[in-house]
């Protein structure tokens, strides 16, 4: 390739954009250790007090627990319906297939509040009491497309001959699915699960409308932000950032080892754009 020596301003621009992208995260982490609380320059009296306060704050930990419960259940629902949906898009023909494809993608691209309040209307008409279960149903439904997209991409790379061989050798569809199809889609499924989990942990627009008495973590943080700024939020955010960083690195290593350049986010965006 003819590597053009890009003009210097391109490098400077890149540095500036990265600074812009990482500045808030750096500030967030830095001020979680600031004795004076959030704000004030320079930061001084470095302390772990906010972390100590955080660990004795039951409301936060209850909401973390609720969020984990919601995220895990949302992963289960989206996979349970998203994997068959991907199989159906790949190997079944039914009327309205194109419509179905677009419909499942809508929650990702529409403003989140629209999906949230539409579901709120459904639950109201059905007389369902709002609780974590309604949030789980909301997240699970809104994120089906993540599972479908990922698994569908995996199916495109799948060697159909293995399944044929399995069926020819007398295994039934169920056995073939569990022993051939699913193991081959392992990476796509793990990737989808990770992405759904993360999106659910951070989701706020749908939860905002479907919340009962129990808060998820983003809603708990949201409630506190409305009352004012507290450094405990920096502390919990820093902890979550470190956890997601570890998860991302683990995932990239797994994926890179298996098939080279990971492209999860790009695939999803392409799908959300409706290219098929």
């Amino acid at each position, binding site marked *: 390739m003819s590597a053009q020596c890009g003009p210097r301003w391109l490098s400077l*621009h890149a540095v500036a954009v990265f600074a812009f992208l990482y500045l808030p995260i750096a500030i967030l982490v830095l001020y979680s250790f600031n004795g004076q609380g959030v704000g004030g320059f320079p930061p001084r009296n470095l302390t772990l007090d906010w972390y100590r306060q955080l660990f004795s704050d039951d409301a936060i930990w209850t909401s973390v627990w609720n969020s984990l419960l919601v995220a895990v259940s949302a992963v289960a629902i989206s996979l349970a319906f*998203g994997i068959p949906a991907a199989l159906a898009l790949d190997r079944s023909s039914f009327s309205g297939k194109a419509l179905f494809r677009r419909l499942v993608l*809508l929650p990702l691209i529409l403003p989140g509040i629209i999906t949230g309040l539409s579901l709120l*209307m459904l639950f109201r008409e059905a007389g369902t009491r709002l609780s974590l279960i309604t949030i789980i149903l909301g997240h699970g439904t809104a994120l089906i497309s993540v599972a479908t997209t990922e698994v569908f991409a995996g199916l495109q790379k799948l060697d159909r001959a293995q399944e*044929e061989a399995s069926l020819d050798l007398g295994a039934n569809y169920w056995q073939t699915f569990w022993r051939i199809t699913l193991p081959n889609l392992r990476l796509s499924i793990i990737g989808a699960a990770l992405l759904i989990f993360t999106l659910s942990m951070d989701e706020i627009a749908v939860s*905002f409308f479907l919340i009962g008495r129990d808060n998820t973590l*983003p809603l708990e943080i949201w409630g506190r932000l409305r009352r004012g*700024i507290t450094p405990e939020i920096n502390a919990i955010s820093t902890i979550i950032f470190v956890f997601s960083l570890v998860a991302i690195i683990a995932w990239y290593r797994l994926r890179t080892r298996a098939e080279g350049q990971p492209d999860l*986010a790009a695939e999803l965006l392409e799908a959300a*754009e409706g290219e098929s």
Partner: protein
Amino acid sequence: MFSRAYRAAITLPPLLWVAVFLLMPYALLLCYSFWSVSDSQIINHSWDFRNYLELLRVNVYLQTLFRSMWIAARVTFFSLLLGYPLAYYVSFVAVKGKDLLYQLVIIPLWVSYLVRAYAWKTILGSDGVLNTLLQYAHVTQHPLDFLLYSPFAVVLTLTHIYTPFAFLPIYASLEHIPRNLIEASHDLGASPFQTFWRVILPLSIPGVLAGATLAFVLSLGDFLAPLLLGGPSGIMISNIVVSLFGAAYNWPLGAAISFCMMALVIALLFVSETLEKKWSFR
């Protein structure tokens, strides 16, 4: 190779689920938008267009919609301004560190959106990091109060959040450009600028369209950044919907606004997709 029963088993459950939890709620949204709410706060199931007429009649709705579109347009512009040269840099200049830089753009996406908006609030506030820094460095005597609670703060924060979304499709389209086209352009005597203008840019238009659509559509419906950082002058259309579903208690009117937003977004997606196909050389 797949039997009918197998195909039914993989098709019906997701279809049913999506029909109940996605299609029905969206249909219900449309129904609600034709209903109304009585003085005693009971939903009145008679069908008419009064909510839509109300949207046209009362200035604040259209005004807020236009303000939201204007904010979203600025966010789109700045995201492209930041995202395109960065994508160009990562794809064509930083050949060796390409993968690492690509991941570095994606990592902020995994940090909670709410938390990043909150971080901007702590930076921009009147006793926030930026203002105290400026006073510390004796650049200003008094805190600059236009930084927070203004459309500026909303545009800044949303640009921060959606720049990676603009970057990704642009980067993908740049990566798909066959490198021998660029070599050919050089060999035929084009300057680097001519090569960019006549080869690279036209071939990356579909990516730009995709990135612009994502940035615009996602920022248009945002409701957290305006509530957190926008102040009264930064209110966006979703905030009105939220208040209609909360304290103002007029679900049908909120549903009508939501349905208009939904139609707008779907129309934009359609236009962008058509244009992308038109500009696609592959």
